[in-house]
């Protein structure tokens, strides 16, 4: 499946991603340093104290020197510096830990999105123009019309307020999937994934409808295969190719959506840190989180491109 050419292709892409990450973090770094005002202004420091702190953060250097040091630290040691608000907190370990949490939640959301989306899409297509189809199609318009924080609010309202006796309000996220309860992940993952599940369902339905009119499906029927085998093995696999094209935007959407959902459910992930560091004006964390996001988006797109090879053997890199 993965030939030598594929491995070379992966290598090239990884190098390209590294350069993109560097470019993105540079742009954010320089953009933030052009902001008017003083990062330490709110601290009301005087004289020597202030000068020491400026020196500590390397802020007493000219911008180009600061930038050079930033790039050298990032490239050689993967060091993103230190938080401006919580002094002494190193950013790289912080964002890496938060990245793990976000990946966990995002992964669950992705399972929801693809699972629900494929299920709804396939069912709507094999029951085309019945009431099942109409209900599912209308649901999907409603699904992608609801912002994820609205879905999340409704879920919180139902499970944390009206059903509090049943759930004991214990659905909030605890760090570490394997230590905690998987049930705690369901609500955030559902809120994050459902809008995109609607889009996947619409695409799957449209592409299934095209595939099940093909001759090879008629052949499969003619040789007496069971309906489930026809749908799952012959139709769905071919219908998946157009669906995969939106996996890239979908991954980006889930990463973006996590900023809101993590804040709502109190999940200590990258998204929560991002929104908070912006509001706290913790500039170095903003740079660090954005660097992480650039890497994640690049890797997600790479994985999607590799999935084409898995689904469609005709595609080679």
């Amino acid at each position, binding site marked *: 499946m993965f030939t030598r050419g594929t491995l070379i292709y992966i290598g090239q892409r990884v190098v390209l991603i590294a350069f993109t990450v560097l470019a993105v973090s540079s742009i954010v770094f320089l953009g933030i340093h052009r902001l008017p005002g003083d990062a330490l202004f709110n601290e009301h420091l005087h004289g020597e104290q202030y000068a020491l702190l400026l020196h500590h953060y390397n802020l007493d250097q000219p911008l180009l020197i600061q930038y050079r040091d930033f790039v050298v630290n990032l490239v050689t040691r993967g060091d993103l510096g230190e938080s401006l608000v919580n002094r002494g907190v190193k950013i790289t370990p912080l964002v890496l830990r938060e990245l793990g949490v976000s990946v966990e939640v995002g992964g669950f959301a992705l399972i929801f999105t693809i699972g629900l989306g494929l299920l709804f899409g396939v069912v709507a297509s094999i029951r085309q123009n019945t009431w099942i189809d109409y209900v599912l199609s209308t649901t999907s318009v409603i699904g992608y*019309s609801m912002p994820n924080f609205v879905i999340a609010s*409704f879920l*919180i309202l139902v499970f944390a307020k009206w059903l509090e006796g049943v759930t004991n309000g214990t659905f909030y996220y605890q760090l570490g999937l394997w230590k905690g309860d998987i049930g705690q992940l369901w609500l955030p993952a559902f809120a994050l994934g459902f809008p995109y599940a609607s889009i996947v369902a619409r695409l799957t339905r*449209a592409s299934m409808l095209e595939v099940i009119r093909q001759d090879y499906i008629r052949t499969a029927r003619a040789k007496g295969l069971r309906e489930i085998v026809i749908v799952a093995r012959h139709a769905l696999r071919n219908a998946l190719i157009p669906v995969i094209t939106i996996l890239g935007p979908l991954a980006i959407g889930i990463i973006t959506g996590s900023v*809101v959902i993590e804040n709502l459910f109190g999940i200590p992930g990258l998204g929560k840190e991002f*929104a908070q560091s*912006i509001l706290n004006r913790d500039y170095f964390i903003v740079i660090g989180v*954005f660097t992480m996001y650039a890497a994640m988006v690049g890797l997600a797109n790479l994985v999607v491109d590799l999935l084409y090879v898995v689904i469609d053997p005709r595609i080679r890199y």
Partner: protein
Amino acid sequence: MAVAVRVDAVSQPDQASLWSDAWRRLRRNRLALAAAIYLLLLVAVAILALFYTPYRMSATGIAPDYASPSFAHLLGVDNLGRDQLSRLMIGAQISLVVGVGTQLLVLAVGVPIGLIAGYYRGWIDSVVTFVINVFYGVPDLLVALILVFLLGPSLANIIIAIVVTRWMDMARLVRGQTLALREREFVEAGRASGAKPLKMLFGHIMPNALGPIIVQATFGVPSAILFEAFLSFLGAGVQQPTPSWGSMAKDGVDAIQFAPHMVLAPAIALSLTLMAFNFLGDGLRDALDPRQKR
């Protein structure tokens, strides 16, 4: 002496223009029609809110904080004792201004870029396509968040941030349409009769791509409204005391345990509006582009 030919004397068959035909098809789609009526009502409410709201939207302490809906305050009162209905009405203004304003700017930016890239092709097209792909590769909401952060939160800056991150949908669509249209005979005829490039692009090609452009703009409005709601929800949107449905929902979520009406009102208003635009967009697409069957 030449004989004058009276053109209008030649009998013509009954013609239905694209637009009257589309209107006939749209009228048959009840869901889209209901959506259009809802949106007209929403616009009416937003205009009404310019002159009249039940209470001043920033007047605090007009009732006990978090008071539930009553006859005096139909949608209840928020965390600072402000009337929710009045704030919802002003929020409708904000949402519509952001949605429509963004799309007007996107049209002004995306349509010319798409037309030029598709019509001239060559290196211009390569550059435009590359830039479009780069923009598709970045997480739009996060870039908008950074932009609002760098520019400072205000209604104008929010609109700018959304346009910067969302212009390429329109540019890509128009480019594709132009690529197809430029090969058609009427474009060749126009060129042969010496039409100037500007006249070609905006007088001949753009009108023929107007259907898909309108559909795309209709779908663009809800995505811009959603964007603004996200930004406001994260605290980077329109600043207090001006309400936005996003920031109202944020205040509501904080009080969700004891004042659920605070989150329900903006959440339902937002969902209904986005739904209406999406249904209308679906209806318009079916009406304006009959070749594309679902």
